[in-house]
């Protein structure tokens, strides 16, 4: 057997478009204002967008001491798109009441808007001010630099280390202090809604020190207090241009060496790890007799076993390399979209259930998502633009998203550092997505799904993929208020249980265990916090091909595996619920996933599932759904 290839971490950051490639696609209106300086300077054109952003800010406000670009500030994920946030640092409580989102308008021009908006207050009120990009006055101002210097402190690189600092005297010390205080999150109680996206946007430019290695400092979630210590801590946690060029410390090297192949430095602690025994999956789903004499509890594991190297990975990589073909290329010849080679189409399903080799996962998922949602590159480009434009708009869910971001996918190096690379991407994807569907908005549970996508896609594609999941995979119904899709899935799940495991169904009924009490999180997070990451990847491989039926069958597989525990004579409400609230660890992932594949290949069952879904819709329409579930 070939040795498994080394860990390949796909960072959630795309190759940012160079000015050339950006001009080929339609440029989002909200990107860095094209000041005359930028257009003229050929040096500028070679700079990364983040650098140009900073130059732009300098030039806009007439500061003639930009950082020295021969030793450019390395910004980890800096983007021109955030320019709208940057000069919006509040200087008074009145300012902080305002939206950060139209702040691309220099302060001198903002005042007129303020007169109309200051008395309204509230987050939702900002919505009619948007989108900024459609405000003609902004474009007008962008064309000519403002005459007066607005009270922006971002124009001065006070966080750059000594060698980048503007000459002494060009910054007022008090301003500097207030900015440090601001970044530490003080004086913003009234404006946390706007402070949240602004903090993420600013740290997108400045970066966070020790990204991936250090825990980082909280600036928004805990609403850090005004102690001098926390202020200093927050200031010190800002990125350092030397961060990316310095030697790794022995501790960091050790940590990198200990990452598992998917990027986890630490196995998140889960309550109750329970084994999904392999023996259960040697028998196909069918009506079988249950025993009542067995124990009521499953086998509890003490710790999560480390992920094992997938079987035959090298040979599978070659096979996938032949099966996936380039469908379209960008003008530079890079592959934009993939498709399944028609001659290999018949092999796709079988190979998917064996597991996509991890280094093909990104391309394969992208292809599967497009197939299922019948979308192509055109739709993707449109959604990318939508994603970027939405970054400039306020979302009523910003605070909630910010509360959830640091507690999502814990243990993964990309998402480890507070406001680090991964956390910023996650915030931005969820922020933009919360503006996509006014019915769904943001719902807790979207986070783990977005994080999963960000492990394989850049933020734009993660966003687009969430949209495909929402539209084509019907996650809309899952996330909508009242969770109609969840109840439908549970109805179908109960019908399968009733048909295949009538004793189990009866046991749930006797013990009064409603399916919602254990299965809600399964369907809303797609088992994200209920199974190990490598298993989830395998399930996602199949999910993207099969659609929403897949997770119903996963739910069935869990109940199938524990059927004898559930029907045990010593089982009760508590044992059943504790068992089904566990974190499930398949003893053998391959057998487990293959079993699910077999169930889903049963066309009779699939058409029954379809009928049951219709049946549920009929019950809902007739107002009779209330009595239909366990």
């Amino acid at each position, binding site marked *: 057997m070939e040795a498994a290839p080394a860990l390949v971490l796909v960072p959630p950051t795309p190759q940012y478009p160079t000015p050339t490639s950006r001009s080929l696609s339609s440029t989002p209106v909200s990107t860095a204002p094209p000041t005359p300086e930028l257009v003229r300077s050929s040096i500028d054109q070679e700079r990364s967008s983040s650098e140009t952003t900073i130059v732009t800010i300098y030039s806009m406000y007439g500061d003639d001491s930009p950082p020295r670009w021969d030793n450019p500030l390395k910004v980890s994920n800096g983007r021109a798109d955030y320019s709208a946030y940057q000069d919006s640092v509040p200087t008074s409580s009145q300012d902080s009441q305002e939206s950060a989102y139209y702040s691309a308008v220099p302060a001198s021009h903002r005042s007129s808007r303020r007169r109309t908006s200051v008395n309204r207050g509230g987050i939702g009120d900002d919505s009619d001010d948007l989108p900024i990009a459609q405000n003609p006055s902004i474009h007008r101002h962008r064309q000519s630099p403002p005459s007066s210097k607005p009270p922006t402190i971002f124009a001065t690189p006070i966080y750059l280390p000594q060698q980048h600092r503007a000459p002494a005297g060009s910054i007022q010390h008090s301003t500097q202090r207030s900015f440090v205080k601001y970044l530490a999150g003080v004086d913003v109680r009234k404006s946390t809604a706007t402070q949240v996206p602004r903090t993420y946007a600013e740290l997108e430019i400045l970066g966070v020190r020790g990204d991936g290695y250090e825990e980082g400092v909280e600036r928004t*979630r*805990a*609403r850090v*207090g005004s*102690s001098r210590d926390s202020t200093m801590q927050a200031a010190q946690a800002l990125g350092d241009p030397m961060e990316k060029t310095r030697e790794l410390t022995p501790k960091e090297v050790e940590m990198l060496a200990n990452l598992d192949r998917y990027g986890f430095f630490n196995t*998140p*602690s889960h*309550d*109750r790890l329970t084994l999904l025994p392999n023996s259960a999956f040697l028998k196909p789903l069918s009506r079988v007799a249950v025993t009542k004499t067995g124990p009521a*509890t499953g086998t509890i594991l003490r710790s999560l076993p480390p992920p094992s190297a997938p079987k035959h990975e090298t040979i599978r990589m070659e096979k996938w390399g032949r099966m996936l073909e380039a469908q379209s290329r960008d003008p530079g010849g890079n592959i934009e979209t993939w498709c399944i080679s028609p001659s290999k189409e018949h092999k796709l399903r079988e190979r998917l259930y064996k597991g996509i080799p991890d280094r093909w996962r990104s391309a394969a998922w992208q292809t599967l998502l497009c197939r299922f949602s019948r979308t192509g590159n055109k739709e993707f480009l449109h959604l990318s633009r939508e994603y970027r434009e939405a970054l400039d708009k306020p979302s009523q869910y910003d605070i*909630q998203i910010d*509360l*959830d971001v*640091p*507690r*999502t996918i*814990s243990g993964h190096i990309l998402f480890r550092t507070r406001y680090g690379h991964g956390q910023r991407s996650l915030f931005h994807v969820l922020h933009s997505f919360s503006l996509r569907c006014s019915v769904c*908005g943001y*719902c*807790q*549970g979207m*986070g783990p799904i977005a994080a999963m996508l960000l492990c394989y896609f850049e933020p734009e594609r993660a966003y687009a993929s969430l949209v495909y999941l929402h539209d084509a995979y019907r996650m809309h119904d899952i*996330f909508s*208020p*009242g*969770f*109609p899709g969840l*109840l439908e899935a*549970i109805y179908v799940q109960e019908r399968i249980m009733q048909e295949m495991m009538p004793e189990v169904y009866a046991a749930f009924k006797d013990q*009064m*265990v*409603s*399916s*919602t*009490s*254990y299965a*809600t*999180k399964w369907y*809303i*997070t797609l088992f994200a*916090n209920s199974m190990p990451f490598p298993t989830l990847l395998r399930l996602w491989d199949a999910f993207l091909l099969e659609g929403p039926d897949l997770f119903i069958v996963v739910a069935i597989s869990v109940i199938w595996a524990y059927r004898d525990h559930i029907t045990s004579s010593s089982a009760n*409400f*508590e*044992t059943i*619920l*504790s068992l089904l*609230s566990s974190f499930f660890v398949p003893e053998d992932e391959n057998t487990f996933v293959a079993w699910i594949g077999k169930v889903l290949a049963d066309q009779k069952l699939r058409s029954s599932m379809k009928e049951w879904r219709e049946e549920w819709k009929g019950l809902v329409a007739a107002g009779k*759904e*209330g*009595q239909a*579930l*366990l």
Partner: protein
Amino acid sequence: MSKQLQFKLVLLGESAVGKSSLVLRFVKDQFDDYRESTIGAAFLTQTVTLDDGTVVKFEIWDTAGQERYKSLAPMYYRNANCAVVVYDITQSASLEKARNWIRELQRQADPSIIIALCGNKSDLAARRQVSQEEAQKYAEEEGLMWAETSAKTGEGVSEIFTAIAKKLPTTAAPSSRAGAGGRTGAAGGRSGVDLNRQQNAVSTNEPCNC
């Protein structure tokens, strides 16, 4: 053998006030800085032994805080014997949310429900936005138990659960709980637990399942 009683307890409160952290501290004596958000609700159990040897077993429903999940709450607080409504002492808005929950419980839950108002994150007293006086006064007016806790340091956590355990009826007094209320919209299911059956004192000392 000592008497064992079993009660259903539900935790309610705004997102990120520390409901799951309180439960984690109470059940496992652990703390995570960033505990993953609860989806739907989490089920756990823990026992408390009172001075007289009575063992009180809590069947804990730790609910999701986001507004979207509010529609599921009735199925967790219906039939609950006790509720811990949590707010964050550093967020005055979270006390408002707690008041809403308490109003809802007073209207919709079993009339005999014991409600404890719990101000969490007392380790962050430097950032306090809710004074002890304010919360205590409100709790007194409404006849609630009240305490401040810190899931992080553990301060006050076992105390509040023990205080609740002491206040619960020590003799099984099943009330008319079965089938209470209709099915509520989205939640779709009836209460998951029949306390008429379970609340009877059982003499078996089952091991805690967590």
